[in-house]
């Protein structure tokens, strides 16, 4: 068990893997997520759905030089496993050492301690500003869910980025068509349309704000995600990478009932209750 994951001590180790090994790594990560979340509790669906994206992020970008900002950061667990913290997922006695959110006290790969939504784009634009003032070169990547896009601060951040940022900024919009509950807001009609047309519909919310835009329909395919990230790496302006993913991917109950499996209480007891309440 965890054959590949056990060999990963930092993102450099991810870059050495071939396609098949990367796919096994994704399986290992899901196994490890299941191990921690059913016993210790935490965010289930958000992490199961983002495994391939975060593997590809570490495969293509160079964290900690490149900066990742996670919105809410409840979906950062695969990233944590790839940045030296796998023990917190595969060894029960180490669960306690890792928080359920990004945490700069744990790793140089985590920039902010956050747990409230819709802040990642604003935080990332600040990093961009300082990077440019100092004349430094690196990628700034924000990862935000479709649900969190409805928050005012996210809209303010996107609006600002669309006109005031003129250098590298990559905003990954993880569209799994779900908040905790179902999504609400006019923006989702546009996301639906963009997904339906593989990103080609001329009515495009992000472009309206002045942002470049790329669509990737296979957000749960590591090779597709590597390709799209290689395309935007070192880009010289803000770009939205809109990806389509499956919340809860790889665990049938979580795929089918995305609301109930957003979060999961630890302990077999509670776990069983969740199963009967479904």
């Amino acid at each position: 068990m965890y054959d590949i994951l056990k060999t990963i001590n930092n993102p450099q180790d991810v870059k050495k893997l071939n396609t098949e090994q990367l796919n096994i790594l994704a399986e290992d990560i899901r196994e490890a997520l299941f191990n921690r979340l059913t016993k210790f509790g935490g965010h289930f669906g958000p992490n199961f759905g983002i495994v391939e994206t975060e593997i590809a992020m570490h495969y293509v970008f160079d964290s900690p030089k490149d900066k990742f900002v996670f919105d809410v950061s409840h979906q950062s667990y695969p990233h944590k496993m790839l940045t030296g913290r796998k023990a917190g997922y595969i060894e029960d006695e180490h669960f306690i050492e890792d928080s359920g959110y990004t945490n700069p006290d744990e790793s140089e790969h985590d920039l902010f301690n956050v747990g409230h939504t819709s802040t990642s784009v604003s935080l990332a634009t600040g990093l961009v500003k300082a990077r440019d003032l100092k004349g430094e070169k690196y990628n700034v990547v924000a990862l935000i869910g479709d649900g969190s896009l409805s928050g005012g601060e996210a809209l303010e951040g996107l609006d600002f980025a669309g006109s005031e940022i003129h250098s590298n900024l990559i905003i990954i919009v993880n569209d799994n068509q779900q908040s905790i509950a179902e999504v609400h807001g006019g923006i989702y009609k546009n996301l639906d349309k963009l997904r339906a047309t593989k990103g080609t519909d001329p009515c495009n919310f992000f472009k309206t704000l002045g942002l470049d835009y790329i669509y990737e329909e296979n957000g749960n395919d590591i090779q597709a995600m590597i390709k799209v990230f290689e395309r935007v790496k070192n880009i010289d302006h803000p770009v939205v990478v809109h990806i389509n993913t499956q919340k809860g991917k790889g665990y049938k109950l979580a795929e089918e009932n995305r609301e109930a499996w957003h979060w999961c209480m630890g302990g077999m007891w509670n776990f069983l209750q969740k199963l009967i309440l479904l």
Partner: protein
Amino acid sequence: MALVYGWHVELPAETYTSLTTEYILNKSKQDKDFVFITPAMPNILGLSPDWRKGMGPQYVDTGITEEHAIAFASGVAKAGGKPLVGTAATFIQRTYDQVSQDVCINNTPITILLNYASFDSLTDVTHLGIFALSAFSNIPNLIVLAPTCKQEYLNMLDWSVDQTDHPVMILIPGNAVTSRETDKDFSKLNTYKVEQSGEKVAILALGDFYQKGEELAKQIEVQLGFKPTLINPRFANGLDKNTLKDLQKKHNLVITMEDGILDGGFGQKVATFYALTDMKVKTYGLKREFYDRYNPGELLKELGMTTKQILNDIQKLI
């Protein structure tokens, strides 16, 4: 009891969350002006997808938009609706100015209902519920209510949602449900409830710390040999000056207990009231600190807030 895979699983007993779900569902059936608004957090108030659907237009999920939800509710109230906004205490923090300007300056009668407003709920540093009480307490016109049991909680909800004079924030207790007969009307603002009359020491135990106050009062009687006064303040951000003045006749020590940070909170207001008198005031609550992933029981001990520790303090102070 249900039998699952050969194991007995206790079905959850009545909780403040289940009481809230029931209230919302009943109220929306009985009152077409009532609307429940949530910035994307129906689950923490127990509203399942089916129940939400059943409420039709009386259920509004605004998206993850706390600021908008509060201002939207103000509009609803202005036009004669009865809005109840529900979410977690930690997420309401970003709405300080909507509560201040869009609601309180305009005195629109909305009710803000906060779950997980206790030190004993969410313990991640990003999700603490211990700041809302002091942060929002100091906005003029806002009535912050801290219920102490099932009946008082439901009576406060009933009163608040139906009244048209004030914006109200209700802190859902973070402890187990208890039961006691309480008042139904809260229109006499900032009036405390003297639950037990005694002497020497007066305990002002706010909200879900009321049960700790009860326990303390009992132990004072058993161990120190006199009957203290026990008060349920109910109004977390108002001073009942008559009651406080009255206490000066037979008491020389006031104990305040609150489930939130002390700075800018309830106890400090009481202490300031007595500042130029002979009354001693000892405040118990949390520090202005970003606690992270703590054990709630251990934290109370660290803060010197167990009944035993407070009894020790009292012995030294009287």
